[in-house]
């Protein structure tokens, strides 16, 4: 009996990654655990936040201080030269504007398609519904493949247009299923009453269902907007004109120059002077996300939960 207890304790121990002495009265042991837990969680917070603090510190620091390896939590040799440099680069602003445009257009299209399809799927009486659901779900299990997708987008003549970024990701099946299960949870009576009052399907969707789904629609908009805002690979793949890049690709080319991995190249001198520029670009790119984060976070959490319950 004692061995069993010890055994299970050690296993739980390992799982929790919290050292805890054995054979101490529960209350004291629990207090020790709370202390250890506080230390671990503090460490989690510090480790999560440190990179952000470090980047901000570097972005305001003097080049020589960075190269000397003296910048950690606080800027050294405070100056705004790098900010001035990046912000005076017209290409940076062009690409930033592109990100905004791509995000808005892509999110709008994605929302229209997702809402329409989810609404159809949410109606149990629709004939052929299993086929319609299957059409979407299959694509989750069998991804289309990078090369064929590229060949298709190219042959459609979408390269170097906004559509190459917007269209291939227009419906996210996970979001679609979340939206569908939300529509299914709405009371049918309201829609039936509206139909009796003479509204057609489009009217019911626009004037009854969508107003009832405001919170859910907002969540979906955020899901799509954040993913389009953050995306870089589609643009990297399908766009090779500097003035059409989103800001994520701008940043990518900056860091690719630093490792010599990308096609931008760059001498080691240029790399060194790029250190602050990179930090500044990261800060300016991440700023909008950090700014809206406190407001959008809980919508995301509720969206994920809803998806998990029914998805």
């Amino acid at each position, binding site marked *: 009996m004692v061995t069993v207890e010890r055994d*299970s304790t050690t296993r739980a*121990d390992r*799982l*929790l990654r919290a050292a805890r002495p054995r054979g101490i009265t*529960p209350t004291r042991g*629990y207090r020790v*655990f*709370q202390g250890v837990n506080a230390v671990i969680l503090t460490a*989690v*917070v510090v*480790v*999560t*936040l*440190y*990179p*952000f603090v*470090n*980047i901000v510190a570097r972005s305001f620091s003097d080049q020589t201080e960075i190269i000397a*390896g*003296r910048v*950690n939590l606080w800027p050294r040799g405070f100056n705004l030269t790098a900010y001035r440099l990046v912000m005076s680069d017209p290409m940076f602003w062009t690409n930033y504007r592109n990100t905004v445009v791509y995000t808005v257009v892509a999110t709008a299209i994605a929302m229209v*398609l997702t809402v329409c399809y989810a*609404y*159809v799927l949410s109606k149990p009486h629709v*004939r*052929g519904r299993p*086929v319609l659901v299957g059409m*979407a779900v299959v*694509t989750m*299990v069998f*991804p*289309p*493949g*990078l*090369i*064929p997708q590229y*060949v*298709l987008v190219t042959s459609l003549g979408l390269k170097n247009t906004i559509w190459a970024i917007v*269209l291939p990701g*227009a419906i996210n099946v996970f979001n679609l299923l979340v939206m569908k299960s939300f529509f299914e949870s709405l009371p049918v009576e309201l829609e039936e009453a509206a139909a009796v009052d003479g509204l057609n*399907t489009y009217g019911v969707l626009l004037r009854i269902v969508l107003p009832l789904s405001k919170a859910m629609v907002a969540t979906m908009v955020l899901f799509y907007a954040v993913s389009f805002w*953050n995306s*870089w*690979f589609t643009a990297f793949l399908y766009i090779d004109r500097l003035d059409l890049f989103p800001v994520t*690709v701008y*940043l*990518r080319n*900056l860091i690719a120059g630093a*490792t*010599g*991995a990308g096609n931008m190249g760059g001498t080691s001198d240029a790399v060194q002077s790029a*250190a602050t520029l*990179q930090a500044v*670009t990261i800060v300016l790119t*991440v700023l909008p996300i950090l700014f809206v*984060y406190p407001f959008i*976070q809980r919508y*995301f*959490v509720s969206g994920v*939960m809803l998806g998990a319950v029914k998805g």
Partner: protein
Amino acid sequence: MSTTLDRPRASADGTAAPARARRARGPTWRRAIRRDWQLYSLAVVPLLFFVVFRYVPMLGNVIAFRRFRPGGSIFGEYWVGLRYVKMFLADPTFWHVFTNTLVIGTLTLVFTFPLPIALALLLNEVRTRAVKRFVQSVSYLPHFLSIVIVAAMVMQLLSVDGSVNQLVRAAGGEAIPFLQRPEWFRSIYVSSEVWQTVGWGTILYLAALTTIDENLYEAARIDGANRWRQTWHVTLPGIRPTMVTLLILNIGTFMTVGFEKILLLYNPLTYPTADVISTYLFRMGFESSSFSYAAAIGLFEALIGVTLILTANAISRRTVGTSLW
């Protein structure tokens, strides 16, 4: 509209003959369309999207077995059989990147699957609500960042003048160009993956934890179980369905690993450990323009991925009764 509806109509007419009886199995197709045509019309554009951007590329995988000419048909020119398959099976680099994929995939799974569970259990023990919420908010944050930003941060932290090397120097060591060293790549990749995903990964576990019946804990306490045994015998079984579901999902992404992040972080110096199937096929396709060869590799990768997820799902249905679908 008629084209998208052709297939289901044909199959339904063939199989669902008894549905002719009124009210037996819903209306026939003709009546369904007459009644629901407005609904169906909403599905037309989304279906077009799925067909064009998902199913056509899926069929486009045939170029793995066909000669492909850039600018020619997206389905290739003529059949070449298994030429490209044989080619990559005989390609030592392919087996090299295959091994790398397995290693990085396994390491990622080993760390990013259990750590969110541990963090969720720890968070669950926090009694002060404000503290709990603060830690949660902070730990979710990296999830909202673009991979490019994460990669850029990794590079800044690990650069020769970065914080990590300052620690190394403070400990009396020599600065290490981490991203140039193949032996460091896996650690870097997995740590940054943990940094980005662990916090967000706790959400579903925390939700599952709140659904565990309080009476179970009380019963366990009456039976003399201390907190550890309560955790072991009540909490963990309580979140087991969530664990299994997420494990299956993790296994499903096993083969693709963090393609975008590796693409951003690796360089020719770290290829020996960093190059995985997806990055290799990316270079084959876009740097060497061997589209068919790359498509063959991609198809192989996808098949393994599908097999893995179906197997994991079948096993979990047999053993613990949890299944994705």
